[in-house]
């Protein structure tokens, strides 16, 4: 058997079972015996998992910034196109419908 530390106890890696830190639990007693034989459990997170978690957090921050930037840029582009088409008096019907729907939705926002 091999084990990995977990915030709720131990994970037995062979079957991913959660073993509680409880000296009345048979599996935990077996774990203590395993440790007493000189074995060491894996840490809760490996260096690779720590690195993966950092990357995931960085990605989340980047995604949020990108989403905000995209929202701003999309709004600016839309406003530019509307202004241009209105000036040209040649605004496509589809864009007119979308703009009308957007105006309607804006009126619902308190």
């Amino acid at each position, binding site marked *: 058997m091999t084990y990995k530390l*977990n915030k*709720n*106890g131990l*994970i*037995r890696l062979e*079957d*991913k*079972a*959660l*073993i*509680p830190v*409880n000296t*009345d*639990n*048979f*599996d*935990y007693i*077996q774990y203590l015996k395993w440790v007493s034989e000189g074995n060491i459990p894996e840490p809760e997170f490996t260096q690779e998992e720590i690195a993966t978690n950092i990357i995931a957090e960085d990605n989340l921050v980047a995604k949020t910034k990108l989403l905000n930037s995209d929202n701003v840029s999309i709004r600016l582009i839309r406003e530019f196109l509307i202004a241009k088409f209105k000036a040209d008096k040649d605004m496509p019907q589809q864009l007119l419908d979308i703009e009308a729907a957007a105006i309607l939705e804006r009126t619902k926002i308190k």
Partner: protein
Amino acid sequence: MTGTLSGNFNGNMTGTFTGSIANISGRNIIINGAMEIDQRKEGVSLSIAADQLMSLDRWRTRRNGTGNYSIIRSTEVPAGFLNSVLLTVTTADASIATTDYYALTQRIEGTNIRGLDFGLSTAKSLTVSFWVRASITGNYSFGLTNAAATRGFPAQYTINSANTWEYKTITILGETTGTWVTTISNAAELWWGLGIGTTYTEPATGAWSSVSNTLGTDSSVNWISTNAATFHITGVQLEVGTVATPFDRRPFAVELELCQRYYEKSYNIGVMTGSSTALGVSTAVAISTTSTHGASHSFKVRKRTTPTISIFGHTGTVAVWSDPAAANTAAATANNACETGFSNVTSTGLTAGVGYYGHWAADSEI
């Protein structure tokens, strides 16, 4: 005549008790002595190539040596029983080392020996009775030890005819010394020896041994030494007193609940743990790649202590959850386990908005 009887009875009642002690239930300290409950394997064979593996509920296999055997619930029975347990040698150990042992055992929780007064001058004698059938005749080893194995009662019983059901009884003297646990922990272990090295045996003198780790008796059959040897046992009863009474057959539902104090699963009875089935699954909805809502589970029976929790996908894969079509599968381990249930499942690789199926098994065996 109808009416209401009221008042106080202050007299003496005399008469003859016409019942039988055999009709009084609750005598048997052994759980699943009729070998009917097999939640883990449900009649599927388990190969014993390591020590302390569990198959039928409450029954523990012991193995320290190079020999291997299998264990399975069997329908080969004596009259009055539906099941027995069958052990079969798959790899013989022809030369048992002094520290080897092979046995079928059951551990007794301390709360179930309260009242026996073991360790006190008022200790009560016990009698163990069982039906046994083996392919090899001779004197077989039996032992009872306390949890620390500092006290042991070595005994023997004889199988006279091969492949024939025989009824055996052994009386165990009340033990007035030693430390006997009366809490939820292991108090005692009963050993039906199938080959025990001399380090762990003492003569069967009908008395308790103070030699540590006395698990059985000298000069007993080394059943494990013969390839394909078989050993059946059922109707196991351990009771107070020096007389073996008829088997205490408890209702199946009661026996199952006694077993579930030590092991419970989400699957139906009759379905092996880890099977591919959606019947009995718990469900949860993923709200992100790592979080779910709804993954909370209560046990039917409070566990002896906080159990070990295993998770299975409904397709039978260990440690995953899946959506009903098994198109989305995510790694899963239990969270926040306690005596009454567990409250969450830690998972990675979820798909938000997807519902996940999962089975579980909770093990608090001693």
